[in-house]
């Protein structure tokens, strides 16, 4: 119960403190102090009416104490500073939501991409340095250093704590959404905690920027993917959409995802996340409309110019038209060493009865794939193929 409140309030309290103090480290220390006091008092005294405001006020007071104490030390005077100067009365105006400001600061393009991700998870997600380090497979001291360096750069380079002005907003929002989606994809590969965190960030963004279609669309996309999480792997092996056990799909997530998508479309959105969410939604239908999916991929391809999108279009075309036409799309693509290209090609070749070439393509895919669940999937496919031929 208290854990949940902490989880919910951490980002908001910290954002407010950073805005107030203009100092990431001081804000973090003060927030930690306040949460520690709450962990001690709340079980005894019960939850305050407005836990977030209580935590913010307490943390502010702790920070002010800290600053005063340091100033006193600096002046080498011996003034007595009250040790526990926590005021219980809570001023609601103190508790403005500044999570957006914090998010745009953490995702500022002057910071390295890995630092943006780490800082976002640390400050808004409240993940510990150790948790983030484990999620990204780097040693804890490396991650700690990355965070320290990022915070130093924010202060030294004058990265502003604000929502960017209108002329910068579209570009900066794209960067923020990319970071959230990156966190989700890291998590979708295995670490559930990260995927859950990305969805939390997506929900917060949708609440804070209710008029941005791409914000709702990204949330929809994440929810619709996440809905199939439990069906996606069986005994540690990848299960194709067509073979997934639909009873394992999370209906609530699908409903929430689709309503977010409707919202995005109602706002007039036709951006890359709207298209991707629409495609994800169509994939969940009992009768999949592959023509519609292929058409959406054409639009997405036009927007992004990405060969990976073309690869996905080819998969849809294979269903909507035939494998031959799909193969012709693959032949146009320049994705050297990308194992998904080889595995898709292998599947199409197999459908066309060209099993020898298919086996060779699976072997090329295996040479490039690293994730265990992908490797075992490819190995099984290759074995099946060789079994059929024998």
């Amino acid at each position, binding site marked *: 119960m208290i854990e949940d409140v902490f989880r919910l309030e951490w980002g908001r309290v910290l954002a407010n403190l950073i805005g107030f103090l203009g100092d990431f480290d001081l804000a973090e220390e003060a927030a930690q102090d306040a949460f520690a006091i709450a962990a001690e008092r709340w079980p005894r005294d019960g939850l305050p009416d407005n836990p977030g405001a209580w935590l913010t006020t307490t943390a502010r007071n702790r920070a002010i104490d800290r600053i005063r104490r340091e100033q006193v030390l600096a002046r080498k005077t011996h003034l007595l500073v009250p040790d526990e100067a926590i005021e219980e009365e809570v001023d609601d105006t103190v508790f403005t939501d500044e999570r957006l400001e914090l998010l745009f600061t953490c995702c500022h393009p002057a910071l390295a991409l890995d630092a943006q991700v780490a800082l976002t998870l640390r400050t808004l997600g409240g993940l510990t340095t150790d948790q983030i380090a484990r999620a990204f497979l780097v040693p804890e001291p490396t991650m700690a250093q990355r965070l320290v360096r990022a915070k130093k750069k924010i202060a030294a*380079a*004058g990265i*502003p704590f604000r929502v*960017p002005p209108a002329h910068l907003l579209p570009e900066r929002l794209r960067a923020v959404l990319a970071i959230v989606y990156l966190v989700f994809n890291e998590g979708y590969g295995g670490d559930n905690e990260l995927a859950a965190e990305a969805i939390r960030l997506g929900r917060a963004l949708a609440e804070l920027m209710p008029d941005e279609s791409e914000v709702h669309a990204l949330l929809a996309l994440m929810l619709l993917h996440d809905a199939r999480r439990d069906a996606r792997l069986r005994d540690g092996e990848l299960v194709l959409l067509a073979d997934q056990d639909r009873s394992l799909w999370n209906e609530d997530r699908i409903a929430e995802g689709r309503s977010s998508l409707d919202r995005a479309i109602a706002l007039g959105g036709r951006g890359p996340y709207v298209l991707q969410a629409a495609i994800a939604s169509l994939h969940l239908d009992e009768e999949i409309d592959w023509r519609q999916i292929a058409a959406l991929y054409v639009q997405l391809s036009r927007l992004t110019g990405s060969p990976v999108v073309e690869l996905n279009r080819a998969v849809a075309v294979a269903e909507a038209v035939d494998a031959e036409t799909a193969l012709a799309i693959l032949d146009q693509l320049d994705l050297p060493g990308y194992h998904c290209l080889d595995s898709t090609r292998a599947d199409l070749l197999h459908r066309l009865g060209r099993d020898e070439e298919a086996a060779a393509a699976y072997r090329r895919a295996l040479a490039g794939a690293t994730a265990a669940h992908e490797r075992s999937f490819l190995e099984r496919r290759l074995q099946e193929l060789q079994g059929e031929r024998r």
Partner: protein
Amino acid sequence: MKYALLIYSHTTDDEWEALSDEEKGAIYGEYRAVSESPNVIGGHQLESAATATTVRVKDGETVTTDGPFMETKEVLGGLFVVDADDIDTALALAERIPAARTGSVEVRPIVEM
């Protein structure tokens, strides 16, 4: 805050000379527009890297060499000094500098004494 916009040019002297007067004039115009922008409080164009002399003192001994401190394709060609509230203003000026298209512009906060 003050920022230095360090302008690294990728254009060699020969490439520059090969431009028409019109093209040169257009580029000078862009530099002038940046230098006359609000927030810009100073700037200098540097002579070509070929005119540089580098000094190092090692174990009390002065070694003077002809040329820039590092022979690279991109050379420091000049700098602007900007006074702005935050990095976004400095970044917006940096992207208007012609060398950002052919070389790069490094934005560095200046330590205030």
